[in-house]
């Protein structure tokens, strides 16, 4: 075809509009950008229908006039972002050829290019990976091909193929599309219009109703469902997907009827089918009922049921607990591995920079092997090991021997020392340098502990009775008393001097937050210059671990 007139173009417009109309629901379901409200297809369809109506009313042999009619109809009926963009694309297209009675292949391609230019002028910050990108890349291709090609159909073919390829690339340009796993909805809508144009030019039937996999639809559906949702709000908890091979001897299948039967069972319902297979996706509380419903029409050839409450709390949980044990397998090329008892303490150490905390403690000290395993698990290339307990220092030293990476032990004997060491860590410095500076940092912190006496004895000249509370300042027993409060306060008075700035109280399982708070109050009253921090360390054996800096 060497030239195109107004009447032929009017037919193309009808065909494009019809093809979009047939696939509007599919376009809706892809819509996740700019606002995931699932109306792109509806909006584009309304816009295009208005354009097609006006074209039908005003169609003339003169292509300039016909294109003007389309432009006017689109402008009047423009709905949504995609509709406004569509109207701009054809406004520029129409303006470019307004004085032409017929156009050749070159004019046709240049008109599309003019439409793209106009569309880009109406936006400050064009977002790439959208309908704009698809229109632009297709037009560019069309102009290139029309340089040497006089056949309008061949140009339209290359043009449409490029639009399709460009659509496939949209997820690489717009992160949200990649995240959700869909192509851009507006771009898809535009491609349907172009495919309609092409089918009309070639005099062929429209491409079959989009046989897109269910996956795109499901991805977009889940994305919309997950926005702004709490686990507790999930009404239908099982994401259920089935594939049914339809069988003659079972009930006759109608997609419409099947959809209506499934509808009461849940939400996010998607059904697509052809002569042989029906695919279903639904969020339901009764996955069994969904399976039974499918079996009425044939045999189930694929079944998948996921518990979304579990998945969702995992997803949301990850958002809020970046340092939860689930992230243990994170890679840390330059790592700090440390040992703690009590999950609160572990949490605290992770929060200030420990890459991996081995849960150990006074009575269940990790072995050399445990330490080596931890280092390997996080894929460390350089590692500093902080034992936080004098009984584990040896094991840590041995672990360094066994590891064939750069490794060193900072001989921390208490949790407060471990904290001081972690805070002195410099990720830019070599292992040996860090080992030295972190070890130096231990001098700035004093450790107090309160624990239980397990038998009557006498240590450091202090009389000790079984079940007494023992106050330890820097590892030395300074008091043994039946009252926890007295022991804790003794630790404080022994350790806090005029150089002290910060006291951190890590309270354990065997005392209460109230007790810890009153201890903090005692410190604030006795030493007004000192800042007090409280942490719930949840450790056993030691009601209090106290650090004084």
């Amino acid at each position: 075809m060497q030239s195109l007139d107004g009447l032929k173009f009017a037919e193309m417009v009808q065909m494009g509009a019809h093809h979009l109309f047939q696939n509007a629901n599919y376009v809706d379901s892809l819509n996740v950008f700019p606002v995931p409200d699932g109306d792109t297809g509806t909006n584009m369809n309304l816009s295009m229908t208005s354009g097609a109506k006006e074209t039908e009313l005003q169609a003339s042999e003169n292509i300039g006039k016909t294109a003007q009619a389309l432009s006017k109809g689109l402008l009047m009926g423009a709905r949504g972002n995609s509709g406004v963009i569509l109207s701009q694309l054809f406004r520029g297209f129409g303006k470019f050829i307004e004085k032409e009675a017929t156009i050749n292949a070159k004019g046709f391609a240049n008109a599309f290019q003019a439409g793209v230019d106009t569309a880009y002028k109406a936006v400050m910050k064009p977002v790439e990976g959208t309908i704009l990108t698809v229109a632009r890349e297709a037009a560019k291709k069309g102009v290139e091909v029309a340089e040497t090609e006089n056949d309008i159909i061949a140009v339209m073919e290359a043009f449409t193929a490029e639009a399709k390829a460009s659509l496939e690339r949209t997820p690489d340009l717009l992160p949200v599309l990649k995240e959700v796993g869909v192509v851009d909805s507006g771009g898809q809508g535009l491609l349907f219009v172009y495919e309609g144009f092409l089918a009309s030019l070639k005099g062929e039937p429209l491409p079959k109703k989009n046989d897109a996999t269910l996956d795109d639809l499901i991805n977009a559906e889940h994305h919309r469902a997950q926005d702004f949702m709490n686990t507790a709000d999930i009404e239908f908890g099982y994401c259920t997907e089935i594939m049914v091979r339809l069988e003659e001897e079972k009930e006759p299948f109608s997609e419409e009827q099947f959809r209506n039967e499934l509808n009461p069972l849940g939400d996010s319902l998607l059904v697509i089918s052809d002569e042989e297979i029906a695919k279903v996706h639904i969020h339901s509380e009764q996955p069994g009922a969904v399976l039974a419903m499918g079996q009425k029409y044939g045999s189930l050839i694929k079944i998948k049921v996921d518990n979304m409450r579990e998945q969702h709390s995992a997803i949301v949980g990850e958002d809020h607990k970046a340092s939860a044990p689930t992230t243990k397998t994170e890679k840390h090329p330059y790592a700090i591995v440390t040992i703690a008892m009590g999950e609160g303490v572990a949490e605290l150490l992770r929060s200030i920079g420990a890459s991996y905390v081995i849960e150990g403690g006074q009575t269940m000290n990790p072995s050399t092997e445990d330490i080596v395993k931890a280092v390997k698990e996080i894929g460390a290339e350089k590692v500093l090991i902080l034992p936080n307990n004098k009984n584990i220092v040896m094991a840590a030293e041995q672990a360094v021997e066994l590891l064939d990476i750069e490794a060193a032990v900072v001989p921390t004997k208490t949790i407060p020392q471990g904290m001081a060491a972690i805070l002195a860590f410099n990720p830019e410095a070599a292992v040996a340098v860090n080992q030295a500076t972190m070890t130096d940092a231990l001098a700035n912190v004093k450790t107090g502990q309160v624990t239980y006496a397990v038998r009557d004895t006498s240590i450091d000249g202090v009389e000790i009775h079984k079940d007494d509370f023992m106050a330890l300042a820097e590892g030395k027993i300074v008091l043994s008393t039946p009252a926890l409060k007295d022991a804790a306060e003794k630790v404080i008075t022994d350790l806090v001097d005029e150089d002290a700035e910060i006291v951190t109280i890590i309270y354990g399982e065997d005392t209460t937050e109230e007790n810890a708070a009153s201890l903090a109050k005692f410190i604030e009253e006795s030493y007004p210059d000192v800042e007090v921090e409280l942490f719930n360390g949840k450790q056993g054996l030691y009601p209090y671990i106290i650090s004084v800096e």
Partner: protein
Amino acid sequence: MSIELNNEFGQIDISTDVLAQIAGGAAIECYGIVGMASKHQVRDGLTDILRKENFAKGVVIRQHDEDLHIDMYIIVSYGTKISEVAYQVQSKVKYTVDKTLGMSVKSVNIFVQGVRVANV
């Protein structure tokens, strides 16, 4: 001036400038907007288009009781369906503020201060 949010851990103050930046940033990504107009300069229909770094000047944030209202002064491209462009801005701004700050906006009011004819 700032917007206060309270939760169990304490209080979050978000400066209205921040909110205006976010709303303005969302708006200028919308199709059909060619600029933001300063809310102060309207003379004889001749409106200065704000440069990108001060488009927050075209945004007014108001807080009545617990409700948040946003006024936006925009300039649109000639030949677009203005009502539809304005509606898109409203929906995009509301969505973006909700998504990034977790605040729900009671109203987004659009003041179209000018149309600009692109040199076709």
